[in-house]
């Protein structure tokens, strides 16, 4: 399969829910400061058809806010596991990866970038100061390592959790 861009940044989150907007904010950063070989998408959440977009790239980075993960961010490998049920309201990155691998034959690498956020409960369209600082560090680091092809060097083994739109922990998002 021909890859238009090598890496897909698939950012998730709701900009109207405080730090849940970290993912979209990162996507916005890379739309304003594009990197060669990096495709950018964002949505409120992952969707089933994202598998088709993933399959057009060599690697994918799911970017989401993290409620309890590493500061300022953590980058983790995502392994596809078998989702037993899908709905358009709730699709985890592993489900997207599993669909891409098993239904579309994709063999690329998948990462989950968890940018640490702190304020998720309120209906505000801005990041907290600490989350904004974490976003800045994540964007800089990602730029450097994508451009130099050294993304693997900043992968951590530590587990993390991501945050869904309600701010509830989303366990086992990474492996």
């Amino acid at each position, binding site marked *: 399969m021909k890859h238009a861009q090598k890496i897909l940044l698939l950012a998730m989150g709701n900009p109207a829910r405080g730090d849940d907007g970290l993912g979209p904010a990162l996507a916005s950063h890379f739309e304003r400061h594009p990197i060669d070989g990096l495709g950018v998408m964002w*949505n*409120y959440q992952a969707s089933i058809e994202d598998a088709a977009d993933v399959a057009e790239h060599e690697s994918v980075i799911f970017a989401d806010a993290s409620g309890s993960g590493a500061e300022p961010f953590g980058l983790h490998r995502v392994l596809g596991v*078998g989702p037993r*049920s*899908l709905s*358009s309201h709730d699709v985890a990155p592993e489900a997207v990866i599993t669909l891409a691998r098993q239904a*579309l034959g994709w063999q690329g690498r998948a990462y989950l970038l968890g940018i640490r956020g702190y304020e998720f409960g309120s209906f505000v369209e801005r990041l907290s100061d600490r989350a904004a600082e974490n976003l800045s560090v994540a964007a800089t680091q990602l730029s450097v390592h994508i451009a130099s092809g050294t993304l693997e060097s900043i992968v951590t083994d530590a587990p993390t959790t991501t945050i869904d739109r309600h701010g509830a922990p989303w366990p086992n998002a990474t492996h």
Partner: protein
Amino acid sequence: MGTHARRIEISPVTRVEGHGKVTIHLDEGNRVIDARLHIVEFRGFERFIQGRPYWEMPVAVQRLCGICPVSHHLCAAKAIDHIVGGAKLTPTAEKMRRLMHYGQMFQSHCLHFFHLASPDLLFGFDSDPATRNVMGIIGTNRDLAFQAIMMRKYGQEIIRATSGKKIHGTGAIPGGINKSLTIAERDALLADIEQMKKWSRHALDLARRYTLANIDLVKTFASFESNYISIVRRDGAMDLYDGGLRAIDANGGPIFDHVPNPAYLDVIREGVRSWSYMKFPFIRSLGEEAGWYRVGPLARINTCDYIDTPEAEAARLEFKALTNGRPNHMTMAFHWARMIEVVHSIEMIERLLNDSDLQGGDLVVSGERAREGVGIIEAPRGTLFHHYRVGEDDLVTMCNLIVSTTSNNEAMNRSVRRVAEDCLSGRPQITEGMLNRIEIAIRAYDPCLSCATHALGKMALVAEIIGPDGVVIDHKVREP
């Protein structure tokens, strides 16, 4: 309830969109006394958008759902069109909205059929729950899984091209649309149209063959006679975007026909019950007891006189032949009807993409300001009503939404009860397969419980058998 009665609870129901639970009350002989589908979260949209400017409605109200936001987006826009005196859209605006709508219908029906319903149909109601899911589909029929993803993506790309975003777009505005379709967008979508038509026919054939091969089961499972409602075009054709209200009774006789959208309250009323946050709409002339009705694909096939696209019409005729032209009351036939609409949608998408009006530049109309607007549309799950009143200060003073799943509320409850009586009543043990049958009955309607109540979240299945003293005497959990 007798002193030895017990209650079974399925909470939340799986492989549906949103949160719900089922409770089944049994007497001391394990006979079903009552069975109910409860909607466990509360929808506050009608109240909390009061005080907001009317022009926000097409964008704001769609936030109550992540799967059918396009339906709410367009329905709100249709209602607000009346507020701005722009109900008669330009050809470009109406056709762009229609294209968006058929894209939504296509992707939503495909998602439901392939990802949520097909494991039950392909593997059987009692098959191993460990594989009776989308991963089981991938494992046994990778081509089908591939089609499911690509068909859903195609519909979403249409939505993106017409509304700006796959989820919560902004294309429809009061009195029109904010963009036309570029030649490049059109050609990109046309490039895949033949493949989508081919896969749609395949999906239709799957649903048709399932129904015919299991006709004895389908005829009775969760089924009963009912009234049906949809909108239809002026000539009686199926029209998913616009038309007058039509209701038929269980024999196909007319209850009302071509009722203008603003007069919906003359024919529809909403009841409430203490145990559910969902309302119970009914046909006013028949009263609350007899006036409940069904909406959605089965209702639309039952109510329309014909379908204005050749392949879907041929499929409709075969569908109607099954019941000798009378209304089809088989709840599991929702799936076949839904796939007829998939074929109809892709035929309409092709027709629209080849219409040069989509490249027009006349996008918005306006006229005399009004204080009230009603929009009605056929959402994937059925007839959707949006009704707004607006003050002189442009702020919304009243909002009433009747969403499709709400209209099917009574019918879903009856289906649950029918299955409970047929499959559970008098049995000493409750098996997973029995519980799955309850969910299969609900899934046939493709309910969006989020729409009905604005609920979102993860779904597991928990079944509890509770004794008369409130103590849980049996407990089953099935992760999604």
